[in-house]
Protein backbone atom coordinates (compact mmCIF):
# COMPACT_ATOMS: atom_id res chain seq x y z
CA UNK A 1 0.00 0.00 0.00
CA UNK A 2 2.84 2.34 0.89
CA UNK A 3 4.52 1.56 -2.40
CA UNK A 4 1.37 2.26 -4.39
CA UNK A 5 0.99 5.65 -2.71
CA UNK A 6 4.60 6.53 -3.48
CA UNK A 7 4.09 5.38 -7.04
CA UNK A 8 1.12 7.67 -7.43
CA UNK A 9 2.91 10.57 -5.88
CA UNK A 10 5.57 10.13 -8.54
CA UNK A 11 3.01 9.65 -11.31
CA UNK A 12 1.17 12.75 -10.21
CA UNK A 13 4.32 14.83 -10.17
CA UNK A 14 5.32 13.53 -13.57
CA UNK A 15 1.99 14.59 -14.94
CA UNK A 16 1.99 18.11 -13.55
CA UNK A 17 -0.25 20.28 -15.62
CA UNK A 18 1.85 23.34 -16.23
CA UNK A 19 0.91 26.36 -14.18
CA UNK A 20 -0.42 29.26 -16.21
CA UNK A 21 2.01 32.12 -16.49
CA UNK A 22 1.40 35.82 -16.81
CA UNK A 23 -2.24 36.06 -15.72
CA UNK A 24 -2.39 36.59 -11.95
CA UNK A 25 -6.04 35.59 -11.71
CA UNK A 26 -5.51 32.42 -13.71
CA UNK A 27 -2.57 31.54 -11.49
CA UNK A 28 -4.61 32.13 -8.33
CA UNK A 29 -7.36 29.91 -9.72
CA UNK A 30 -4.83 27.21 -10.57
CA UNK A 31 -3.47 27.29 -7.02
CA UNK A 32 -6.94 27.17 -5.46
CA UNK A 33 -7.93 24.15 -7.51
CA UNK A 34 -4.61 22.60 -6.38
CA UNK A 35 -4.93 19.59 -8.65
CA UNK A 36 -1.71 19.54 -10.68
CA UNK A 37 -2.21 15.91 -11.64
CA UNK A 38 -5.72 16.47 -12.94
CA UNK A 39 -5.35 14.50 -16.19
CA UNK A 40 -4.00 11.45 -14.32
CA UNK A 41 -6.54 11.90 -11.56
CA UNK A 42 -9.40 12.06 -14.03
CA UNK A 43 -8.13 8.88 -15.66
CA UNK A 44 -8.05 7.09 -12.30
CA UNK A 45 -11.50 8.49 -11.48
CA UNK A 46 -12.82 6.95 -14.72
CA UNK A 47 -11.16 3.68 -13.75
CA UNK A 48 -12.79 3.82 -10.31
CA UNK A 49 -16.18 4.56 -11.89
CA UNK A 50 -15.73 1.52 -14.13
CA UNK A 51 -14.79 -0.60 -11.11
CA UNK A 52 -17.86 0.73 -9.32
CA UNK A 53 -20.18 -0.12 -12.20
CA UNK A 54 -18.77 -3.61 -12.75
CA UNK A 55 -18.08 -4.84 -9.21
CA UNK A 56 -18.73 -2.51 -6.29
CA UNK A 57 -22.22 -1.31 -7.18
CA UNK A 58 -23.59 -4.77 -8.11
CA UNK A 59 -22.18 -6.31 -4.92
CA UNK A 60 -23.57 -3.45 -2.84
CA UNK A 61 -26.98 -3.67 -4.49
CA UNK A 62 -27.02 -7.35 -3.52
CA UNK A 63 -26.05 -6.38 0.02
CA UNK A 64 -28.90 -3.88 0.07
CA UNK A 65 -31.40 -6.78 -0.18
CA UNK A 66 -30.80 -7.23 3.55
CA UNK A 67 -33.05 -5.15 5.82
CA UNK A 68 -31.76 -1.78 6.94
CA UNK A 69 -31.70 -2.85 10.60
CA UNK A 70 -29.11 -5.48 9.78
CA UNK A 71 -27.01 -3.17 7.63
CA UNK A 72 -27.04 -0.52 10.38
CA UNK A 73 -25.86 -3.26 12.75
CA UNK A 74 -22.93 -4.09 10.49
CA UNK A 75 -22.12 -0.37 10.18
CA UNK A 76 -22.15 0.02 13.97
CA UNK A 77 -19.98 -3.09 14.39
CA UNK A 78 -17.36 -1.72 11.98
CA UNK A 79 -17.47 1.67 13.70
CA UNK A 80 -16.87 0.01 17.05
CA UNK A 81 -13.79 -1.74 15.64
CA UNK A 82 -12.46 1.69 14.67
CA UNK A 83 -12.69 3.12 18.20
CA UNK A 84 -9.09 2.23 19.25
CA UNK A 85 -7.72 4.24 16.30
CA UNK A 86 -10.19 7.07 16.98
CA UNK A 87 -9.07 7.12 20.63
CA UNK A 88 -5.37 7.28 19.72
CA UNK A 89 -6.06 10.23 17.41
CA UNK A 90 -8.29 11.97 19.99
CA UNK A 91 -5.34 11.79 22.39
CA UNK A 92 -2.79 12.90 19.78
CA UNK A 93 -4.98 15.95 19.14
CA UNK A 94 -5.26 16.69 22.86
CA UNK A 95 -9.07 16.30 22.78
CA UNK A 96 -9.65 15.02 26.34
CA UNK A 97 -13.45 15.19 26.27
CA UNK A 98 -13.69 13.43 22.93
CA UNK A 99 -11.23 10.77 24.13
CA UNK A 100 -13.49 10.20 27.13
CA UNK A 101 -16.50 9.86 24.81
CA UNK A 102 -14.64 7.33 22.70
CA UNK A 103 -13.71 5.20 25.74
CA UNK A 104 -17.31 5.28 26.98
CA UNK A 105 -18.62 4.40 23.53
CA UNK A 106 -16.31 1.40 23.29
CA UNK A 107 -17.20 0.13 26.77
CA UNK A 108 -20.95 0.57 26.33
CA UNK A 109 -21.26 -0.66 22.76
CA UNK A 110 -18.99 -3.69 23.17
CA UNK A 111 -21.06 -4.91 26.14
CA UNK A 112 -24.63 -3.56 26.17
CA UNK A 113 -24.42 -2.92 22.43
CA UNK A 114 -23.76 -6.64 21.76
CA UNK A 115 -20.21 -6.54 20.34
CA UNK A 116 -20.93 -3.18 18.74
CA UNK A 117 -23.97 -4.07 16.63
CA UNK A 118 -26.13 -1.62 18.56
CA UNK A 119 -25.06 1.98 19.08
CA UNK A 120 -26.40 2.15 22.62
CA UNK A 121 -23.83 4.79 23.57
CA UNK A 122 -25.34 7.34 21.15
CA UNK A 123 -28.74 6.92 22.82
CA UNK A 124 -27.07 7.58 26.18
CA UNK A 125 -25.50 10.81 24.98
CA UNK A 126 -22.10 9.64 23.74
CA UNK A 127 -22.39 10.66 20.09
CA UNK A 128 -20.03 9.07 17.58
CA UNK A 129 -17.28 11.09 15.92
CA UNK A 130 -14.61 10.41 13.33
CA UNK A 131 -10.91 10.92 13.84
CA UNK A 132 -7.98 9.68 11.80
CA UNK A 133 -4.30 10.42 11.49
CA UNK A 134 -4.87 12.65 8.44
CA UNK A 135 -6.96 14.92 10.67
CA UNK A 136 -4.36 14.70 13.44
CA UNK A 137 -1.67 15.86 10.98
CA UNK A 138 -3.96 18.73 9.95
CA UNK A 139 -4.38 19.87 13.57
CA UNK A 140 -0.60 19.75 13.86
CA UNK A 141 -0.42 22.21 10.99
CA UNK A 142 0.37 19.89 8.08
CA UNK A 143 -1.18 21.14 4.84
CA UNK A 144 -3.24 18.84 2.64
CA UNK A 145 -1.00 19.07 -0.43
CA UNK A 146 -2.25 18.51 -3.96
CA UNK A 147 -5.43 16.56 -4.64
CA UNK A 148 -4.89 12.91 -5.52
CA UNK A 149 -7.37 10.35 -6.83
CA UNK A 150 -6.33 6.95 -5.51
CA UNK A 151 -7.34 3.84 -7.41
CA UNK A 152 -10.06 2.00 -5.48
CA UNK A 153 -9.73 4.21 -2.36
CA UNK A 154 -10.96 7.34 -4.14
CA UNK A 155 -10.33 11.03 -3.40
CA UNK A 156 -7.38 11.89 -1.17
CA UNK A 157 -4.23 13.99 -0.80
CA UNK A 158 -0.70 13.18 0.44
CA UNK A 159 -1.57 14.11 4.03
CA UNK A 160 -4.69 11.94 4.20
CA UNK A 161 -3.07 9.07 2.27
CA UNK A 162 -0.16 8.97 4.73
CA UNK A 163 -2.74 9.24 7.52
CA UNK A 164 -4.48 6.10 6.24
CA UNK A 165 -1.21 4.14 6.29
CA UNK A 166 -0.35 5.36 9.80
CA UNK A 167 -3.85 4.47 11.04
CA UNK A 168 -3.33 0.95 9.74
CA UNK A 169 -0.18 0.56 11.82
CA UNK A 170 -1.73 2.25 14.87
CA UNK A 171 -4.62 -0.19 14.95
CA UNK A 172 -4.28 -2.77 17.78
CA UNK A 173 -6.51 -5.14 15.83
CA UNK A 174 -3.89 -5.22 13.08
CA UNK A 175 -1.11 -5.91 15.60
CA UNK A 176 -3.12 -8.85 16.86
CA UNK A 177 -3.81 -10.28 13.41
CA UNK A 178 -0.16 -9.82 12.47
CA UNK A 179 1.03 -11.79 15.51
CA UNK A 180 -1.59 -14.51 15.32
CA UNK A 181 -1.41 -15.23 11.58
CA UNK A 182 -4.97 -14.11 11.02
CA UNK A 183 -4.19 -12.27 7.82
CA UNK A 184 -7.72 -12.77 6.53
CA UNK A 185 -9.06 -10.33 9.14
CA UNK A 186 -7.78 -7.00 7.74
CA UNK A 187 -8.70 -8.03 4.19
CA UNK A 188 -12.23 -9.11 5.15
CA UNK A 189 -12.63 -5.96 7.20
CA UNK A 190 -11.54 -3.79 4.27
CA UNK A 191 -13.94 -5.51 1.87
CA UNK A 192 -16.95 -5.35 4.19
CA UNK A 193 -15.98 -1.78 5.11
CA UNK A 194 -15.93 -0.86 1.43
CA UNK A 195 -19.37 -2.34 0.84
CA UNK A 196 -20.71 -0.58 3.94
CA UNK A 197 -19.27 2.77 2.80
CA UNK A 198 -20.79 2.35 -0.66
CA UNK A 199 -24.10 1.47 0.96
CA UNK A 200 -23.99 4.57 3.18
CA UNK A 201 -23.24 6.78 0.17
CA UNK A 202 -25.78 5.10 -2.11
CA UNK A 203 -28.31 7.94 -2.37
CA UNK A 204 -25.79 10.78 -2.06
CA UNK A 205 -23.63 9.59 -4.97
CA UNK A 206 -26.64 8.74 -7.09
CA UNK A 207 -28.12 12.21 -6.57
CA UNK A 208 -24.81 13.96 -7.12
CA UNK A 209 -24.01 12.14 -10.35
CA UNK A 210 -27.46 12.91 -11.77
CA UNK A 211 -27.33 16.58 -10.88
CA UNK A 212 -23.72 17.48 -11.68
CA UNK A 213 -22.25 18.65 -14.96
CA UNK A 214 -18.70 17.75 -13.88
CA UNK A 215 -18.92 14.84 -11.46
CA UNK A 216 -15.13 14.73 -10.96
CA UNK A 217 -14.96 18.41 -9.94
CA UNK A 218 -18.01 18.04 -7.68
CA UNK A 219 -16.38 15.10 -5.84
CA UNK A 220 -13.13 17.03 -5.51
CA UNK A 221 -14.90 19.99 -3.93
CA UNK A 222 -17.04 17.81 -1.67
CA UNK A 223 -14.08 15.79 -0.44
CA UNK A 224 -12.16 18.91 0.58
CA UNK A 225 -15.11 20.57 2.26
CA UNK A 226 -16.04 17.43 4.18
CA UNK A 227 -12.43 16.95 5.34
CA UNK A 228 -12.20 20.57 6.49
CA UNK A 229 -15.44 20.11 8.38
CA UNK A 230 -14.13 16.92 10.02
CA UNK A 231 -10.82 18.57 10.92
CA UNK A 232 -12.60 21.48 12.60
CA UNK A 233 -14.91 18.93 14.29
CA UNK A 234 -17.92 20.54 12.65
CA UNK A 235 -17.37 23.91 14.28
CA UNK A 236 -16.54 25.50 10.94
CA UNK A 237 -12.94 26.52 10.50
CA UNK A 238 -12.31 29.98 9.12
CA UNK A 239 -11.57 28.39 5.79
CA UNK A 240 -14.85 26.64 5.78
CA UNK A 241 -17.13 29.44 6.77
CA UNK A 242 -15.74 31.81 4.23
CA UNK A 243 -15.98 30.53 0.69
CA UNK A 244 -12.29 29.84 0.17
CA UNK A 245 -12.26 30.65 -3.52
CA UNK A 246 -12.23 34.38 -3.86
CA UNK A 247 -13.28 34.87 -0.29
CA UNK A 248 -16.44 36.37 1.06
CA UNK A 249 -19.09 37.91 -1.10
CA UNK A 250 -18.10 41.43 -0.20
CA UNK A 251 -14.38 40.73 -0.31
CA UNK A 252 -14.43 40.06 -4.00
CA UNK A 253 -13.98 42.92 -6.43
CA UNK A 254 -17.20 44.69 -7.47
CA UNK A 255 -17.78 42.73 -10.64
CA UNK A 256 -17.20 39.53 -8.79
CA UNK A 257 -20.07 40.01 -6.38
CA UNK A 258 -23.39 38.25 -6.57
CA UNK A 259 -25.05 41.64 -6.75
CA UNK A 260 -24.18 45.08 -5.57
CA UNK A 261 -27.14 45.02 -3.25
CA UNK A 262 -25.87 42.15 -1.16
CA UNK A 263 -22.59 43.89 -0.44
CA UNK A 264 -21.78 45.16 2.99
CA UNK A 265 -23.91 48.29 2.89
CA UNK A 266 -27.24 46.75 3.69
CA UNK A 267 -26.47 45.29 7.03
CA UNK A 268 -29.93 44.67 8.26
CA UNK A 269 -33.50 45.80 8.11
CA UNK A 270 -33.73 49.57 8.22
CA UNK A 271 -35.67 50.90 11.11
Amino acid at each position, binding site marked *: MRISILLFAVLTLANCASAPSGDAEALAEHQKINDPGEPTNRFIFKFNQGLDAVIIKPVTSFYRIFPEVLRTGVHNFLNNLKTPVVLINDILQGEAERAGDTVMRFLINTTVGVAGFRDQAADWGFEPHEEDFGQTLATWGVGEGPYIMLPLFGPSNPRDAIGKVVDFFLDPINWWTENSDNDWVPLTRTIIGGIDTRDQLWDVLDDLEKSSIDFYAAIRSLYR*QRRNDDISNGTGSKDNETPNFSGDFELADPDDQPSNKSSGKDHG*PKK
Partner: protein
Amino acid sequence: MKNFHRGAIAALFGLALSIIVPISQAKADGFTDGAQKFIGALVIRAESSLLVEGISISERQVRFRKLMMESFDLSGVGKWVLGRYWRRASGIERKLYLKLFEDFIIATYTKRFKAYTNSKLQINATTSRRSSAFVNTQINRKSGKPIRIVWRVNYSDGRYQIIDIVVEGVSWIQTQRSEFVSVIRNRGGKVSGLIDALSKKIADLKSSAS
Protein backbone atom coordinates in the same frame (compact mmCIF):
# COMPACT_ATOMS: atom_id res chain seq x y z
CA MET B 1 2.42 65.64 28.04
CA LYS B 2 2.90 62.55 25.97
CA ASN B 3 1.22 60.47 28.62
CA PHE B 4 -1.69 62.85 28.81
CA HIS B 5 -2.24 62.56 25.10
CA ARG B 6 -2.22 58.85 25.19
CA GLY B 7 -4.61 58.78 28.10
CA ALA B 8 -6.98 61.20 26.40
CA ILE B 9 -6.91 59.30 23.17
CA ALA B 10 -7.56 56.04 24.97
CA ALA B 11 -10.47 57.62 26.84
CA LEU B 12 -11.93 59.08 23.67
CA PHE B 13 -11.53 55.80 21.93
CA GLY B 14 -13.21 54.00 24.80
CA LEU B 15 -16.08 56.48 24.75
CA ALA B 16 -16.49 56.09 21.02
CA LEU B 17 -16.49 52.32 21.37
CA SER B 18 -19.06 52.39 24.16
CA ILE B 19 -21.39 54.34 21.90
CA ILE B 20 -20.78 52.38 18.72
CA VAL B 21 -20.87 48.89 20.18
CA PRO B 22 -24.43 48.88 21.58
CA ILE B 23 -25.80 50.37 18.38
CA SER B 24 -24.17 47.85 16.07
CA GLN B 25 -25.07 45.11 18.53
CA ALA B 26 -28.74 46.05 18.44
CA LYS B 27 -28.66 46.26 14.67
CA ALA B 28 -27.01 42.87 14.41
CA ASP B 29 -29.57 41.36 16.79
CA GLY B 30 -32.46 42.68 14.73
CA PHE B 31 -30.83 41.29 11.63
CA THR B 32 -30.18 37.80 13.03
CA ASP B 33 -33.63 37.59 14.62
CA GLY B 34 -35.19 38.63 11.33
CA ALA B 35 -33.14 36.09 9.40
CA GLN B 36 -34.11 33.33 11.80
CA LYS B 37 -37.80 34.19 11.53
CA PHE B 38 -37.47 34.31 7.76
CA ILE B 39 -36.13 30.73 7.65
CA GLY B 40 -38.78 29.55 10.10
CA ALA B 41 -41.53 31.10 7.98
CA LEU B 42 -40.02 29.65 4.81
CA VAL B 43 -40.10 26.13 6.22
CA ILE B 44 -43.75 26.50 7.19
CA ARG B 45 -44.59 27.90 3.76
CA ALA B 46 -42.74 25.07 2.03
CA GLU B 47 -44.64 22.52 4.08
CA SER B 48 -48.03 24.04 3.37
CA SER B 49 -47.50 24.66 -0.35
CA LEU B 50 -45.26 21.80 -1.44
CA LEU B 51 -46.03 18.90 0.85
CA VAL B 52 -49.76 18.81 0.21
CA GLU B 53 -51.43 15.82 -1.37
CA GLY B 54 -53.42 15.92 -4.58
CA ILE B 55 -51.51 18.47 -6.66
CA SER B 56 -49.98 17.56 -10.03
CA ILE B 57 -46.24 17.31 -10.59
CA SER B 58 -46.27 20.37 -12.83
CA GLU B 59 -48.20 22.37 -10.23
CA ARG B 60 -45.65 21.29 -7.62
CA GLN B 61 -42.82 22.50 -9.84
CA VAL B 62 -44.52 25.82 -10.45
CA ARG B 63 -44.92 26.33 -6.70
CA PHE B 64 -41.34 25.28 -6.03
CA ARG B 65 -40.04 27.74 -8.60
CA LYS B 66 -42.07 30.54 -7.06
CA LEU B 67 -40.75 29.72 -3.60
CA MET B 68 -37.16 29.53 -4.85
CA MET B 69 -37.43 32.80 -6.76
CA GLU B 70 -38.83 34.60 -3.74
CA SER B 71 -36.42 33.26 -1.12
CA PHE B 72 -33.12 32.77 -2.95
CA ASP B 73 -30.88 35.39 -4.50
CA LEU B 74 -30.52 33.19 -7.59
CA SER B 75 -29.12 35.84 -9.93
CA GLY B 76 -26.65 37.01 -7.26
CA VAL B 77 -25.46 33.49 -6.58
CA GLY B 78 -25.35 32.77 -10.31
CA LYS B 79 -22.97 35.67 -10.87
CA TRP B 80 -20.80 34.79 -7.87
CA VAL B 81 -20.54 31.17 -8.99
CA LEU B 82 -19.06 32.26 -12.34
CA GLY B 83 -16.41 34.35 -10.57
CA ARG B 84 -13.92 35.96 -12.91
CA TYR B 85 -15.61 34.43 -15.94
CA TRP B 86 -18.64 36.66 -15.36
CA ARG B 87 -16.59 39.64 -16.55
CA ARG B 88 -15.51 37.79 -19.65
CA ALA B 89 -19.04 36.80 -20.66
CA SER B 90 -20.84 38.82 -23.29
CA GLY B 91 -24.20 40.44 -22.57
CA ILE B 92 -26.09 37.68 -24.36
CA GLU B 93 -24.09 34.98 -22.60
CA ARG B 94 -24.81 36.55 -19.20
CA LYS B 95 -28.52 36.65 -19.86
CA LEU B 96 -28.63 33.12 -21.22
CA TYR B 97 -26.47 31.79 -18.39
CA LEU B 98 -28.57 33.34 -15.61
CA LYS B 99 -31.76 31.89 -17.09
CA LEU B 100 -30.13 28.45 -17.41
CA PHE B 101 -28.69 28.67 -13.88
CA GLU B 102 -32.18 29.30 -12.54
CA ASP B 103 -33.61 26.34 -14.48
CA PHE B 104 -30.70 24.14 -13.44
CA ILE B 105 -31.04 24.92 -9.74
CA ILE B 106 -34.79 24.43 -9.78
CA ALA B 107 -34.49 21.15 -11.71
CA THR B 108 -31.83 19.71 -9.39
CA TYR B 109 -33.05 21.03 -6.07
CA THR B 110 -36.74 20.17 -6.22
CA LYS B 111 -35.91 16.70 -4.97
CA ARG B 112 -33.38 17.80 -2.37
CA PHE B 113 -35.48 20.58 -0.94
CA LYS B 114 -38.32 18.13 -0.49
CA ALA B 115 -36.03 15.89 1.52
CA TYR B 116 -35.08 18.81 3.78
CA THR B 117 -38.61 19.91 4.45
CA ASN B 118 -40.07 16.44 4.70
CA SER B 119 -38.57 15.94 8.12
CA LYS B 120 -38.92 18.49 10.87
CA LEU B 121 -36.29 21.16 10.79
CA GLN B 122 -35.11 22.27 14.20
CA ILE B 123 -33.87 25.86 14.28
CA ASN B 124 -30.96 26.55 16.62
CA ALA B 125 -28.90 29.68 17.11
CA THR B 126 -28.26 32.35 14.49
CA THR B 127 -24.97 34.18 14.18
CA SER B 128 -23.88 37.00 11.92
CA ARG B 129 -20.63 37.76 10.14
CA ARG B 130 -20.19 40.81 7.97
CA SER B 131 -23.33 41.21 5.87
CA SER B 132 -24.61 37.66 6.32
CA ALA B 133 -26.65 35.89 8.95
CA PHE B 134 -26.05 32.16 9.49
CA VAL B 135 -29.17 30.35 10.65
CA ASN B 136 -28.12 27.03 12.19
CA THR B 137 -30.65 24.25 11.84
CA GLN B 138 -30.69 20.48 12.11
CA ILE B 139 -32.74 17.55 10.92
CA ASN B 140 -33.15 14.86 13.54
CA ARG B 141 -33.17 11.30 12.33
CA LYS B 142 -34.41 8.09 13.88
CA SER B 143 -30.89 6.70 14.04
CA GLY B 144 -27.53 8.35 13.67
CA LYS B 145 -26.44 11.91 14.19
CA PRO B 146 -28.70 14.80 13.20
CA ILE B 147 -27.86 16.48 9.89
CA ARG B 148 -26.49 20.02 10.33
CA ILE B 149 -27.81 22.60 7.86
CA VAL B 150 -26.73 26.24 7.93
CA TRP B 151 -28.71 28.80 5.92
CA ARG B 152 -26.74 31.86 4.92
CA VAL B 153 -29.04 34.84 4.57
CA ASN B 154 -28.43 38.37 3.31
CA TYR B 155 -30.71 41.37 3.56
CA SER B 156 -31.14 43.47 0.46
CA ASP B 157 -33.88 45.28 -1.42
CA GLY B 158 -35.92 45.31 1.77
CA ARG B 159 -36.10 41.55 2.04
CA TYR B 160 -34.16 38.54 3.23
CA GLN B 161 -32.63 36.27 0.63
CA ILE B 162 -30.82 32.95 0.97
CA ILE B 163 -27.38 32.98 -0.64
CA ASP B 164 -26.05 29.62 0.54
CA ILE B 165 -27.03 26.35 2.18
CA VAL B 166 -24.25 24.53 4.02
CA VAL B 167 -25.06 20.86 4.70
CA GLU B 168 -22.62 19.09 7.04
CA GLY B 169 -19.94 21.61 6.19
CA VAL B 170 -20.50 21.42 2.44
CA SER B 171 -21.41 24.75 0.89
CA TRP B 172 -23.79 24.72 -2.04
CA ILE B 173 -22.33 27.81 -3.75
CA GLN B 174 -18.74 26.65 -3.33
CA THR B 175 -19.45 23.22 -4.79
CA GLN B 176 -21.36 24.79 -7.65
CA ARG B 177 -18.57 27.27 -8.33
CA SER B 178 -15.79 24.69 -8.42
CA GLU B 179 -17.86 22.55 -10.76
CA PHE B 180 -18.76 25.39 -13.14
CA VAL B 181 -15.21 26.76 -13.20
CA SER B 182 -13.92 23.28 -13.99
CA VAL B 183 -16.34 22.96 -16.93
CA ILE B 184 -15.28 26.35 -18.29
CA ARG B 185 -11.57 25.55 -17.92
CA ASN B 186 -11.97 22.25 -19.71
CA ARG B 187 -13.75 23.98 -22.58
CA GLY B 188 -11.12 26.49 -23.47
CA GLY B 189 -12.05 29.03 -20.80
CA LYS B 190 -15.29 29.87 -22.59
CA VAL B 191 -18.57 30.60 -20.83
CA SER B 192 -20.36 29.29 -23.94
CA GLY B 193 -18.97 25.84 -23.03
CA LEU B 194 -20.73 26.01 -19.67
CA ILE B 195 -23.94 27.21 -21.34
CA ASP B 196 -23.87 24.14 -23.63
CA ALA B 197 -23.24 21.79 -20.72
CA LEU B 198 -26.02 23.36 -18.64
CA SER B 199 -28.64 23.19 -21.38
CA LYS B 200 -27.74 19.56 -22.05
CA LYS B 201 -28.04 18.72 -18.35
CA ILE B 202 -31.39 20.48 -17.98
CA ALA B 203 -32.75 18.58 -21.00
CA ASP B 204 -31.53 15.29 -19.45
CA LEU B 205 -33.10 16.10 -16.11
CA LYS B 206 -36.40 17.04 -17.72
CA SER B 207 -36.57 13.89 -19.83
CA SER B 208 -35.77 11.64 -16.88
CA ALA B 209 -38.33 13.41 -14.67
CA SER B 210 -41.25 12.92 -17.04
